[in-house]
């Protein structure tokens, strides 16, 4: 035993460990798990991005669920269309009665009755409707013609109160023309296989537990609605799309991954260790630093962030592969007399330090999510290293059972073979450099979509439902700011001509400004002032009706409605309470600490980049103020590119620290050159391999490559400081191979995760571990011990 302390010291160490683990566990159970993928995106940089982020996260848009009922593919005709529409209706009734939901629509006429009524009542505030004699004469002539046609029943109910049919024009203008087609009285698709509903949950979109419950309620409602229908209706599946369901789906997937991958990694690594070490006790002991590291790291993240991201949880799997290394080094490099190999403990300390340097790059990357991964890993490996150093040695069996000679011989042979691969590896590394350089800027993929853990089919379905319901594409938003909500609305009104010109020129299919539903106070006042008083209007009606077949007295309701609007209170958002329009309005009006803003949505923009550039180029003194164009995709892409640049600098700094640490360890220039060559070639080969596999690299690949440098430096260091004694030498080599194999297992498993961030990191490190191990044997293997 080279442990300087006695039984008392050991007892203190164990007590400290117990206390630490207990405290950490207490923290871990209090820490909630989040899966909001925006955590991995750069934080909002300015007021406008804050606005966008807040809307996307907490706004009405984040609470909307698009629900699709889809009959099995075997149904090929419209036979079940009417029954599907009735099913959608029953589902709507149940959702409407459910307190978990605030609003629901299935396209049935009744669902929009309140909207129609709200618009009808507000029409004099929303339209510049000329009521002079000439306009009235034209309007009445049109009305008379309509009333003489077979279409009369459709117009007759509103004709006496709204003879100019202003309310119909208003409906048209608000997109009734783009409204999804209904069939059989509901949003049933033309093939009769799909029906759609739209619902708003009461809980915010980021409250995943509540969202999950809402989804479960939907399924329950569908079951009871099905039970009330014909028994022979093919059972439809319920697909829910929207921010809530998507987050729930990725959380479920990540949680499933964490369980599955942790079990798989633990089992595979235990199997590997058993094959080589043949000691259940050692495997059990190796679990102590691993478990300690994971628990302490989770607790540290919980303390620092208040919650833990699902991706961090998934990343914890890699800690199994990393932390087990220290127990392996401690065990394999033991001497038969129970003492440690020379420099073993300083070597492990250095291994911890270089790995930590790699993870530190993630910590400083500027991405909240990556910072969490970095902190998690640094704390985890330091805890695991300390555990291996101060707790394990006294517990290891007194006499190690030697590793199977065949394995030792194989590892030695492989190491010898690798040493002959110097030239080919150097050539391959050179080719890798050429490949990477030749790609230029195409090397990098900064599209935030690569972060989405949703299967393509899911996003495609979301797009399909959105299209079918005529919902705006949320990629592009025009934000108009003002000191007050009314000023923002007034500015949005002044932006209308610009947008209308763009629409007329075919640059966009449509736009939707909240000022249409809620005009500014000044506009409302101007419209009210333009309305004639009752006596004037009666006189004009009489004049306009001269010579027609219409009776002036019949239009007294029209006169009354104009008089009421003229004398009544101004229109406020409260007018739309409880309607779909109210929902839309709430989603488009924001008040925050930067003032107020309204969001104008656009549809069918032909060239988003050009459209954004045109609006951004409006002169500073434009009456609409300075509208801000938020291009979700492009803005985030640019941010990611910026962060990638910064991450590259941080990564280079990290590599420098790693190299310095190794240099301090190996001392001689020759050995330093070997170490640098091994690390450099390993990382280059891994990077080129990724490009060949995925065609481009992301920020996450870059950060993971730094991790490769951190992990690979361990192999390089142990290879470059192999002991002189042949037995020790073989043991040291074996331990390096074992460590690399366990790390490979953990990261290769991570590469099968459903979270793209984890997949990218997993595949990069798995590839990098093999490459750096090979290069370490080739370039850094020393024939004699070079450091003391």
């Amino acid at each position, binding site marked *: 035993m080279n442990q300087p302390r006695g039984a008392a010291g050991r007892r203190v160490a164990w007590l400290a460990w117990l206390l630490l683990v207990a405290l950490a566990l207490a923290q871990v159970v209090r820490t909630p798990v989040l899966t909001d993928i925006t955590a991995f995106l750069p934080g909002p940089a300015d007021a406008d991005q804050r606005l966008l982020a807040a809307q996307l996260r907490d706004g009405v848009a984040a609470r909307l669920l698009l629900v699709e009922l889809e009959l099995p593919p075997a149904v090929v005709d419209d036979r079940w269309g009417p029954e599907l529409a009735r099913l959608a209706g029953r589902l709507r009734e149940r959702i409407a009665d459910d307190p978990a939901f605030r609003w629901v629509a299935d396209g049935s006429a009744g669902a929009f009755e309140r909207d129609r009524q709200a618009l009808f009542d507000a029409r004099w505030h929303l339209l510049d409707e000329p009521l002079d004699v000439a306009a009235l004469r034209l309007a009445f002539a049109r009305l008379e013609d309509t009333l003489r046609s077979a279409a009369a029943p459709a117009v007759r109910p509103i004709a006496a109160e709204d003879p100019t049919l202003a309310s119909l024009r208003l409906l*048209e203008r608000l997109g009734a023309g783009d409204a999804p087609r209904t069939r059989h009285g509901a949003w049933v698709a033309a093939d009769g296989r799909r029906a759609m509903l739209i619902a708003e949950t009461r809980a915010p979109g980021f409250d995943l537990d509540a969202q999950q419950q809402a989804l479960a309620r939907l399924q329950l409602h569908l079951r009871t609605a099905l039970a009330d229908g014909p028994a022979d209706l093919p059972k439809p599946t319920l697909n829910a799309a929207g921010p809530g369901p998507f987050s729930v789906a990725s959380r479920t997937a990540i949680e499933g991954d964490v369980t599955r991958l942790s079990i798989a990694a633990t089992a595979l690594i235990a199997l590997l260790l058993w094959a080589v070490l043949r000691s259940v006790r050692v495997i059990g002991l190796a679990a102590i630093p691993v478990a300690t590291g994971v628990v302490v790291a989770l607790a540290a993240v919980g303390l620092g962030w208040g919650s833990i991201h699902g991706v961090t949880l998934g990343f914890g799997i890699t800690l199994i592969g990393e932390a087990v290394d220290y127990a392996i080094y401690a065990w394999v490099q033991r001497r038969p007399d129970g003492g440690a190999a020379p420099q073993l403990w300083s070597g492990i300390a250095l291994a911890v330090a270089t790995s930590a340097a790699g993870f530190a790059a993630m910590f400083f990357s500027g991405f909240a999510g990556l910072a969490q991964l970095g902190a998690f890993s640094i704390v985890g490996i330091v805890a695991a290293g300390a555990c291996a150093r101060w707790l394990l040695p006294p517990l290891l069996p007194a006499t190690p059972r030697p590793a199977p000679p065949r394995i030792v011989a194989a590892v030695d042979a492989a190491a010898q073979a690798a040493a002959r691969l110097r030239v080919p590896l150097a050539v391959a590394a050179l080719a890798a450099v050429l490949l990477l350089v030749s790609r230029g800027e195409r090397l990098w993929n900064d599209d935030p979509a690569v972060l989405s853990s949703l299967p393509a089919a899911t996003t495609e379905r979301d797009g399909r439902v959105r299209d079918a319901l005529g919902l705006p594409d949320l990629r592009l938003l025009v934000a108009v700011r003002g000191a007050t909500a009314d000023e923002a609305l007034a500015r949005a009104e002044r932006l209308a001509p610009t947008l209308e010109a763009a629409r007329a020129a075919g640059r966009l299919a449509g736009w939707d400004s909240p000022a249409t539903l809620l005009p500014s106070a000044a506009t409302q006042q101007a419209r009210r002032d333009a309305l004639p008083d009752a006596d004037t209007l009666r006189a004009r009606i009489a004049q306009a009706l001269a010579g027609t077949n219409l009776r002036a007295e019949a239009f007294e309701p029209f006169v009354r409605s104009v008089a009421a609007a003229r004398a009544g209170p101004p229109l406020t958002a409260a007018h739309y309470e409880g309607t779909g329009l109210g929902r839309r309005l709430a989603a488009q009006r924001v008040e925050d600490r930067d003032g107020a803003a309204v969001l104008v949505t656009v549809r069918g923009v032909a060239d988003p980049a050009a459209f954004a550039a045109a609006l951004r180029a409006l002169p500073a003194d434009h009456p609409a103020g300075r509208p801000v164009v938020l291009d979700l995709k492009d803005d985030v892409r640019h941010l990611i590119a910026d962060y990638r640049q910064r991450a590259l600098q941080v990564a280079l700094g990290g590599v420098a620290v790693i190299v310095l640490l190794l240099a301090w360890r190996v001392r001689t220039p020759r050995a330093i050159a070997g170490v640098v060559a091994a690390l450099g070639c390993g990382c280059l080969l891994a990077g080129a391999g990724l490009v060949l596999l995925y065609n481009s690299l992301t920020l996450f690949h870059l950060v993971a490559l730094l991790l490769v440098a951190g992990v690979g430096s361990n192999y390089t260091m142990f290879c470059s400081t192999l002991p002189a004694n042949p037995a020790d030498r073989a043991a040291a080599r074996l331990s390096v191979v074992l460590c690399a194999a366990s790390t490979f297992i953990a990261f290769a498993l991570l590469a099968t995760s459903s979270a793209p961030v984890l997949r990218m990191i997993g595949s990069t490190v798995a590839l990098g571990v093999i490459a750096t191990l090979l290069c370490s044997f080739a370039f850094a293997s020393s024939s004699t011990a070079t450091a003391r």
Partner: protein
Amino acid sequence: MTARPRRAACALAAALLAAGVARAADTPTPPQAWTPVPALAQAPAPTGPVPARAGADVLLDRIVDGLARDAARERRFVERRRSALFVEPVESRGTLRFVAPATFEKLTDAPTRERLRIDAERATVQRGEGAPVVVALDAHPALRAIADALRGALAGDARALRTAFTPAVSGDDARWRIELVPRDAGAARAIERVVLAGGGGRLERIDVLERSGDATELWLVGRDGRG
């Protein structure tokens, strides 16, 4: 109509207009003089005792079957509409044509040539030489109810009539009357009931009573398409 095309609003207005009234030169004479009493009172009164429910169902099926066999694919019509908004009732004439299985057309000749074509989901309207305008029936439940009634009667589809309306039948095969009350809430807001009347296997008259009190009586006259 001199309305300049103002975006889609005009399309809708045009569609609404297009089912328009025509006063053809060869105006058929109504089979009887117009009377000032409410149109629905004009329908023939039940002749026998009110049949039992099952009997009424059988009668409805038989009447509607007969209409399908009659296959009056093309009939001239005279229509008169009364409204609280009108000083005088208005009249129109033209041709109704049914094309199995689900399409019917209302053709008017003057003052503007118009063609209203209604199929399962849409009403398509062509006014003069203008481009056809398409309106979804789902957006206009009142139009759909009228279309359903006409189609059900002309196609002889009793099941379709029962799906869209609550029917009440009275009279006998020689002289019958079918009252249709819309089931759909949207349609019922505009249409109180549609009454079909006829006898001897022929549909003679269609009355539409609206919630507003307006009423339309449509007499089918002339010979069928097989002439």
